[in-house]
């Protein structure tokens, strides 16, 4: 029984293992007799391919844990590819740099200011440990407002100087990596404002953002369905190639971002109060609210982070596919949601983990890899993906267990304890006709 429970708790990883086994067994062999599926090149390719979806799914996990949903990530990612590609290939004040420079400056100001305040309050708390559990440490204005604001201003100036200096030439790798996610972060925070302050349902607010971000992307690019091609070395800086290379020849660069995001946000969910609050809000928002948690703050932050990660994914997309296009992320949000759900995170919120999402993303990636190695039609692949979603969620949500329990209950009539999840209908032993109901017309 104990073994069974352990098996059930780790079933996600078993699923991953089974997929790997199938992949290895079914894999074609290269001319030299090597298993192609298990080859290093193939596995790193899978990791590379899932990185963009994976980054987006990381942000999505946090949003879904809170009981929300972010449909806009695909469009925001597409918009980010446009910003990134234009910054790389066009010099001067283009639509991208007009948006990007102020965005990066503003985000830099707030990020550094909040960071400073955060550090100050942490330091203050350390000194004032005996203050009792309830009391919050109120920072004096100079530590609470003025010094953080000053530091923010310094950071904003530095960022503005740095980005403006890049405008006349074209943006470099660092500039792009700084500016693009900032723009996406602002879109994400707009989602957050709509949901938190405007009290819109997350589905609606992010649906609106999904539609409009696509439009903004096309407007920014200048013409409908514009594709901004990025040829490193000719119309863009050579250095941008680094984002599609292998780090030290071991890990593909996009995967480094993906893995770092998983580890960082996994730790945040596990070890910080933010993470605890996220689970608490997703589990029971009313109880969380009444426990003195600033629900709005946490929700806002989650949507903001989701936008930020979509922005980073956008930069990686440009590096990977050498182009930016407004609809680059079409359908990406659904892939991300699917990966999150396969990873065992409940769409109702409050239950799930980033480790699960990581596995979910890998299962998806490995599956398409296996099917591609078998030369299976891409439309069949879509059907298979659908099947995988249904199957894993059936296992994940323990619906399967319940189905089995119900079936076993039916087959043994005397079975059944009060704790059973199903209440079978007992037959009505008294003849119903005895209490024949009057016809409605005679109801008076």
């Amino acid at each position: 029984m104990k073994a069974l429970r352990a098996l059930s708790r780790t079933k996600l990883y078993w699923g991953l293992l089974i997929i790997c086994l199938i992949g290895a067994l079914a894999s074609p062999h290269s001319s030299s007799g090597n298993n192609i599926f298990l080859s290093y090149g193939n596995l790193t390719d899978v990791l590379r391919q899932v990185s963009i979806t994976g980054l987006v799914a990381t942000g999505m996990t946090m949003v879904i844990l809170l009981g929300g949903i972010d449909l806009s990530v695909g469009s925001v990612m597409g918009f980010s590819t446009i910003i990134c590609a234009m910054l790389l290939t066009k010099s001067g004040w283009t639509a991208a740099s007009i948006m990007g420079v102020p965005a990066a400056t503003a985000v830099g100001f707030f990020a550094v200011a909040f960071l400073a305040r955060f550090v100050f309050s942490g330091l203050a708390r350390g000194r004032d440990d005996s203050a009792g559990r309830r009391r919050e440490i109120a920072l004096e204005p100079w530590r609470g407002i003025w010094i953080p604001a000053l530091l923010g201003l310094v950071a904003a100036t530095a960022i503005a100087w740095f980005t403006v200096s890049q405008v006349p030439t074209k943006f470099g790798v660092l500039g792009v990596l700084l500016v693009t996610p900032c723009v996406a972060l602002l879109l994400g925070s707009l989602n957050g404002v709509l949901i938190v302050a405007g009290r819109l349902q997350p589905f609606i607010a992010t649906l609106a953002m999904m539609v409009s971000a696509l439009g903004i992307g096309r407007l920014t690019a200048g013409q409908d369905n514009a594709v901004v091609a990025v040829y490193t070395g000719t119309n863009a800086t050579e250095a941008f190639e680094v984002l599609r290379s292998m780090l030290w020849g071991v890990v593909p660069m996009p995967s480094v971002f993906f893995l770092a995001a998983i580890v960082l946000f996994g730790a945040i969910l596990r070890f910080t109060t933010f993470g605890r609050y996220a689970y608490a809000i997703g589990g029971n928002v009313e109880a969380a609210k009444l426990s003195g948690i600033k629900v709005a703050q946490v929700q806002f932050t989650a949507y903001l982070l989701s936008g930020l990660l979509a922005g980073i994914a956008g930069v990686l997309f440009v590096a990977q596919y050498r182009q930016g296009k407004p609809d680059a992320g079409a359908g990406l949000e659904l892939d991300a949601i699917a990966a999150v759900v396969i990873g065992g995170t409940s769409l109702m919120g409050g239950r799930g983990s980033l480790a699960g999402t990581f596995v979910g993303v890998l299962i998806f990636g490995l599956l398409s890899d296996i099917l591609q190695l078998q030369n299976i039609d891409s439309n069949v692949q879509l059907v298979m993906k659908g099947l995988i979603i249904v199957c894993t969620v059936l296992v994940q949500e323990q619906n399967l267990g319940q189905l089995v329990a119900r079936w076993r209950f039916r087959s043994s009539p005397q079975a059944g304890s009060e704790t059973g999840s199903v209440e079978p209908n007992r037959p009505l032993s008294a003849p119903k006709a005895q209490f024949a109901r009057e016809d409605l017309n005679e109801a008076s």
Partner: protein
Amino acid sequence: METRSGAAGGREAPRAPPDHRAASVGRIGRGTESGRVVLVAERISKSFAGVTALRDVDFDLRRGEVHALMGENGAGKSTLMKILAGVHTRYEGVIQMEGHPVSFGGVRDAEGAGVAIIHQELNLVPELSVADNIFLGREPLIAGTLIDGRRIVRAAERLLRRLGVNIDPRSRIAELRIGEQQLVEIAKALSLDTRILIMDEPTSALSSSECETLFKIVRQLADDGVAIIYTSHRIEEVLDLADRVTVLRDGRRVVTAPIGELSRAAIISAMVGREMAANHRGTAAKSGSVVLTVNNLTLDTLTGRGWRRALHGVSFQLRQGEILGIGGLLGSGRTEILESIFGVARGWRGGAIAIEGRVVDIESSADAYRLGVALVTEDRKERGLHLAESICNNVALPSIGAMSRFGLRAFARETALADDVVRRLSVRCAGIDQLVSTLSGGNQQKIVIGKWLATEPRILLLDEPTRGIDVGAKQEIYELIFKLAGQGLGIVVVTSEMPELLLLSDRVLVMCEGHQTGLLQRGNATQETVMRLAAPGMATHPWDTAS
């Protein structure tokens, strides 16, 4: 619960002598009528997750009688009613109707057999019309597809006329008052050709004139041959209305007898079975300084029909170590007072709140938390707990922010905190990693209280702290409340149970329809005085006028 302890007998009301009902209208000449037995339940037992709710209860019901079911909260009344109405389908024992054993597979089954239940919380769709509600799910159809609206309205009209009430079947439920909604529920039950009608606390939210209408209709139904099972916390009402009474206590039947054979005192002692808990605190602490001042508190809430004033100028002071009880009927604004103080009431708040003499602005629960105000909500499962999480996570939740540094959780301190709470409140559990959903109601309640105590509050607001927990656990909660007051906390308790209100409170604030109708000192607060202040419309109750 309208009972008081034997110890409090010195404060017995001047009214309500045991024989007063002999004079009441509608009862004359009915006492001797004994219809044939329509329902027999034998040796009914039921337990929930190990807690016994009913043990070997026998019950029988005759045609045309009003059979009152009495007992304290948690005595098993609701469980028995729900079994008879097919809500609970698993139990031990046998139920026979008209001599045939029956076993309902659900509420529909029971309705088919002629048993209908009207729950305390009404089961109507607010946005549908009266007629649509009556025939919900059983609409007569034209050609098997379209709903025959005219026929529904006509049938509903007939039903309502039969009840002798003047309600337009086309009006929406949301436009009706609670009393009228209750009558719609009765009409719905009648439309099912109900032979057995179960009514769970039908008068708990009614005004006195609405009660009178209801009683008249109940009598009339009984005269038509419907057997009625009736519960109420108001003993006078039962003495007036019922033909027989069955008293349950701690899941067992204590007595079943015709109403004439039982006096009011006999019913009370059968229900209580023992002395109520004595006041463990001795004399109330009055020396403490004022921790909370509420001045002219108002609350306007936005409803479907525009702004409604939920609180009309409530004012009181709370001292350290004092327990202030708030009494009143359901919907009288009791909960709204607590939510307004805690900053979570929906709507516009007016008036001033001062904590320890300083006027404060509490806009959210985070503000309340910072100022040392704690609220234990009425609905602990929906609003108080994260059921799917551990004791430790639940207890620590409000405190983890203050215990963390740089946003990093202090796991060791969280564990220590939870251990401390579990020990101090003697929560019975396997350990702090146990899931809260697996705890009993009483222990869950302790967790909710504990998670707030862990924040070291100055003011504790308790909304129905003993709802749905068993008698022993109640006692523990009372003792806990006394102990906390002894430690200098200012406590505000809202409760629907009169003995509990009188037992706990140093002072009683009585609410009626959003108005503060009284603030009674402990010595002056009796069931009668509180009831009179709480009753809407007028200062008396039906049984006052009947005798």
